[in-house]
């Protein structure tokens, strides 16, 4: 699957989309769902929770493993994708459109430190050896 160029990425396989209102939407990448396999549960943060960058903020559990999702940038959770809890398989079908939560960034500078699509592709290639 091609990596959308309008998103930013983390080394821990989260994607980040900057919205027009300044919030960011967070999900896990297609590569992450492929590694994890069939999704069984997702555990989302609560609206109002605040996280610092790289802090564990959600859990994605598949038939193979439970993986922590790390907060790509610091901020406060303003919305969570509640319907995803009942249909986590959406992540397998379309990871880049199955968002987990939206965040109001507390330090927008951190966005600059994330990978772009090309950088993320390079990361994936290096992980393949």
């Amino acid at each position, binding site marked *: 699957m091609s990596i959308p160029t309008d998103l930013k990425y983390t080394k821990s396989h989260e994607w980040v989309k900057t919205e027009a209102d300044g919030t960011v939407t967070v999900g896990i990448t297609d590569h992450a769902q492929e*590694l994890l396999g*069939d*999704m*069984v*549960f997702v555990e989302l943060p609560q609206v109002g929770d605040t996280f610092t960058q790289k802090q564990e903020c959600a859990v994605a*559990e598949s*038939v*193979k*493993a439970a993986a922590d999702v790390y907060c790509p940038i610091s901020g406060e959770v303003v919305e969570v994708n509640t319907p995803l809890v009942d249909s986590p*398989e959406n992540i397998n079908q379309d990871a880049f459109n199955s968002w987990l939560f939206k965040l109001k960034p507390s330090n927008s500078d951190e966005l600059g430190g994330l990978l772009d699509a090309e950088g993320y592709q390079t990361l994936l290639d290096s992980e393949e050896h």
Partner: protein
Amino acid sequence: MLIFEHARPGRRNYSQAPENAADTSGIPEQYLRKKQPLLPEVSEMDTVRHYTRLSQKNFSIDTEFYPLGSCTMKYNPRACNALAMLPQYIGRHPLAPEDTGQGFMACLHDLQEILKDVTGMAGISLAPMAGAQGELIGVMMIRAYHESRGDFERTEIIVPDAAHGTNPATAVMCGFKVVEIATDKKGNVDIDALKAAVGPQTAGLMLTNPSTLGVFEENVTEMSRIVHEAGGLLYYDGANLNAVLGKVKPGDMGFDVIHINLHKTFSTPHGGGGPGSAPVGVSKRLLPFIPIPFVKFENGQYDWVTEKEVPQTIGRLSAHMGNAGVLLRAYVYVRLLGRDGMHRIAEFATLNANYLMAELKKAGFEIAYPTRRASHEFIVTLKNVKEKTGITAMNLAKRLLDKGFHAPTTYFPILVPECLLIEPAETESKQTLDAFVTAMKEILAEIQEQPDLVKNAPHTMPLRKLDDVKAARELDLCWKPED
């Protein structure tokens, strides 16, 4: 079908029924049951048939080769069972006076001494009743040691990423922060990463050696020096001890505490939930914290050592002497082997693994760490097979069931994609290993010629391919009677 579903009102199983009605005269009224407990009312014959049928559906070490990596599913000799089940052992009450249990206590004392010798540790406690409990106790002792010295700054435990998943879990349960360090391309712990990770905050390092990658840690003494110089202690996860038993002593590698899985290395029954047993061995500096009770021999008499003699002990782990029946089986096992036999465990565990690895490599399978000699287990990766054909490690594992072999461990360690962790164990013959290689070769050919056959396996099992997702999401674990 559940045993409850065989039940019909009024059916009785007379061989299990009590001879007399219980005397409840001494029990206050409010504690007496008002209703009968919900037990299945089944006949003796139905019960026998039900459980026999279940056992026939089961893959077990008594019926099939079981190369489940990291689990050491080796044969449990019948002699160990027979001797540990002598009526004098089975009938012994745990609170019986010591002078009527000298034989039992002598066995435990002997086992302590033998484990001390084979691990090179200063003391052994047989009390922990599972691998996870042994681990917990080990790290609790590390914490107790630092605290007894007034050193409360040591808040971190270092765990390599090739460790057993229980290691970081144990550290967290004991209140420590886990610091993960990486593995290099050869499968060893990255020494520079270790050097960077240690400091005055380091309580200890937990190491599984040989690691879950199936290789012996080549720099173990260097690692032990680095951690000790930083003031930390070293924990040895003995899960893979059968690879080095009688050849290398963890005590000589510099470890301060070790747990030994009797249900793996010492061939006591394993799987289906145990019961496990995980004696802990400690170095001299951890002796004051060792869990009680254990057995001492003084003035011709075996006695329990309790908190009176070990006032700083971290305490008891159960009401009595751990899983005594399992300890007895392990004791018989080591006595049957003797000192020479103990050496042969490591020799055959590694020989079998390396033979199997070489044969599978010849057959065209990709080995994850091809430059390394296997310890007692090794990893095959189907990463390239999956890319070319879409067949996964799980597909191959299921197909092996059709061929009469238990599947190896799949998708662990998570460092290696599409992996099978294969541990033949030392009890298997060359003929069995060859038959396994033949089955693996057949599957490799099937992947090319009839991929759907592999993808939809198993075909011959009582149940076909399971819906893992449904099983995980819609747990159905409790039976309730229809009203």
